[in-house]
């Protein structure tokens, strides 16, 4: 296939994915015990709809649906970057323990800082990011033996850190009163709790900036994928590029963790699906991952709300139940 054809194919696929995301968005808005028709949507937009209907859509559904979309996009971006930087198909913020780090910091905050001292909408994103960054740095540093890291070792160390940090978090959680306990447990299981209109702009702008940064570095990501020696030979500053791209990934996953809790496997599965659709070149892979992440997350949210209605399954559990078998399949195939 010539290059122009290839480019057009990539663009066409991205357009398709955008369409899929829009459809999923619409389906998620409609999921639940009351569906909203296009007519009613028009009414709400014009302001002629009954107040309760407008409330349902604007105050309840939309924030949650938009947050879900953004969290899926952000985690998928993080996974895509981590996989590129570590040359490891199975990297994911959850697998590498990054989410567990965020979880620990959040739990520590809830345990040790008296309620109301610091507003949680400010503190939790910051803590989630700090925890993510700390674990990412530690995991990276620990996987370097005699100056070289290896993808498999990074995974192993990440898995160890994830296990250890979850244990430490369990320990902290045991000392919580029931109400807080349920909150942290849900947060750890991955529940989009932070779906408020205040958070959405922060999330959207933050992820927008990070995605743009990732796109700017797309060629560097391609070059990094050839291995440290070849990348250095091509003039990439490997340590600096790795650190910068990891920081972008951690930023994205930290932001998403803060509102969505620890969701493992989203960042693993979505970039894979994207890669199957558009190929390994990061100029198309980054946008494709973002769109696939948004779409799959919306679908997971639909499942989490409708499968055992009227009960809700934390969406992180849905993600794990779908993601873990896929991870196993990748292992079996590798």
């Amino acid at each position: 296939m010539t290059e122009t054809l290839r480019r057009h194919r990539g663009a066409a696929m991205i357009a398709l994915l955008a369409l899929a995301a829009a459809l999923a968005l619409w389906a998620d808005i409609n999921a639940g015990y009351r569906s909203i028709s296009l007519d009613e949507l028009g009414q709400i937009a014009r302001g002629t709809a009954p107040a309760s209907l407008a409330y349902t859509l604007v105050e309840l559904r939309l924030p949650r649906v938009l947050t879900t979309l953004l969290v899926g996009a952000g985690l998928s971006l993080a996974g895509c970057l981590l996989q590129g930087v570590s040359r490891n198909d199975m990297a994911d913020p959850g697998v590498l323990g990054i989410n567990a780090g965020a979880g620990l910091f959040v739990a520590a905050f809830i345990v040790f800082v008296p309620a109301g001292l610091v507003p949680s909408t400010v503190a939790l994103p910051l803590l989630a990011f700090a925890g993510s960054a700390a674990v990412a740095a530690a995991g990276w540093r620990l996987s370097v033996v005699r100056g070289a890291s290896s993808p498999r070792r990074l995974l192993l160390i990440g898995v160890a850190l994830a296990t250890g940090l979850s244990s430490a978090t369990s320990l902290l959680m045991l000392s919580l009163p029931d109400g807080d306990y349920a909150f942290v447990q849900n947060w750890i299981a991955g529940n989009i709790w932070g779906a408020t209109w205040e958070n959405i702009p922060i999330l959207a702008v933050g992820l927008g900036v990070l995605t743009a940064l990732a796109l700017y570095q797309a060629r560097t990501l391609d070059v990094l994928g050839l291995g440290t020696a070849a990348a250095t030979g091509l003039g990439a500053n490997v340590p600096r590029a790795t650190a910068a791209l990891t920081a972008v990934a951690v930023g994205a996953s930290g932001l998403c963790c803060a509102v969505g809790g620890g969701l493992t496997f989203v960042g693993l599965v979505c970039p894979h699906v994207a890669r199957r659709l558009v190929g390994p070149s990061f100029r198309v892979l980054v946008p494709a991952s973002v769109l696939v992440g948004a779409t799959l997350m919306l679908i997971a949210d639909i499942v989490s709300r409708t499968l055992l209605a009227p009960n809700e399954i934390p969406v992180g559990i849905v993600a794990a139940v779908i993601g873990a078998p896929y991870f196993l399949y990748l292992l079996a195939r590798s």
Partner: protein
Amino acid sequence: MSRLRTSVFLLAGIAAVALAAGLSLFVGSTPIAPDQVIGALVAPDMANQEHVAVLELRGPRTLGCILVGAAFAVAGAIMQGVTRNPLADSGLLGINAGAAFALALCLALLPGMSFAGVVACSFAGAALALAAVFGAVSFRRRNMDPVLLVLAGCAVGLFLTALAQGVAIFFNIGYALTFWTAGGVAGIRADTLAMTAPFIVGALAAACALARRVSVLSLGDEAAAGLGVAVGKSRALCLAVVLVLAGAAVALAGPVAFVGLMVPHIVRRFVGADYRAVIPASLVAGSTFMLLADAAARTLIAPSEVPIGIIFAIVGVPFFIWCARREATGLD
């Protein structure tokens, strides 16, 4: 020479177990005078509160620690030998999570089930998890890649843990489950002990009998076959023993990871890599470690208790990372 080393180690180990058991019996969150403890063991008086405490709480707990520690350690040793994977451990390979998931289902759906049933479910869950892990890794492949095994184990573990969490949230048994999930020997009583002890003791005996085969299997499938060992059957037998050990231990004390990882490594430094020595040595070392960890769990934040699984995780994770770094060239 190594025979002598092993014997010395075993004797020292038995002495250590005795000492640690003594420590466990005599020291606790509420002080009980030594003569009372001895009195409880020799001439129990059911009216005496302190005697009752010793016989109903400390005694079973001590015995439980000995059995659970030995079980996890030997299970880890066998797995490391059979899968030729220095990082194998029942927790890391998802077996503990399998048992935990089965138990969560029990707690939620059949709360009135007898302990025998709980133990049976535990075995079933452990078997399910192990089957999934092995299935994933040996799919279309002849060799068991050590790293893939651990990764598959973690995926299966995460999957089953997520399911268990779902069950917990759905049936509102979260708090109880978390304490148990973190690993607690505090709940061991005479009846649960009586139920599981035969399984554990039997499996430990079987493990010692299979030690020679484990040694041969650790040389690799082809070498083992060349030495006349029926590879498939032996491996299945060894893994069955692992399942019984891990399943029973998890039913008693909850999922405690890293014991099976750390103990065989430490033991190997003293008695070498032959599993005929490593398995018995892991038995005594595992018991000792468990007793010591339990003592720490009870005294660190007295009168509260730290779940023992957390202590092992906090010690075990740095140990695992150190192992992974050290084995770096071997594993890549």
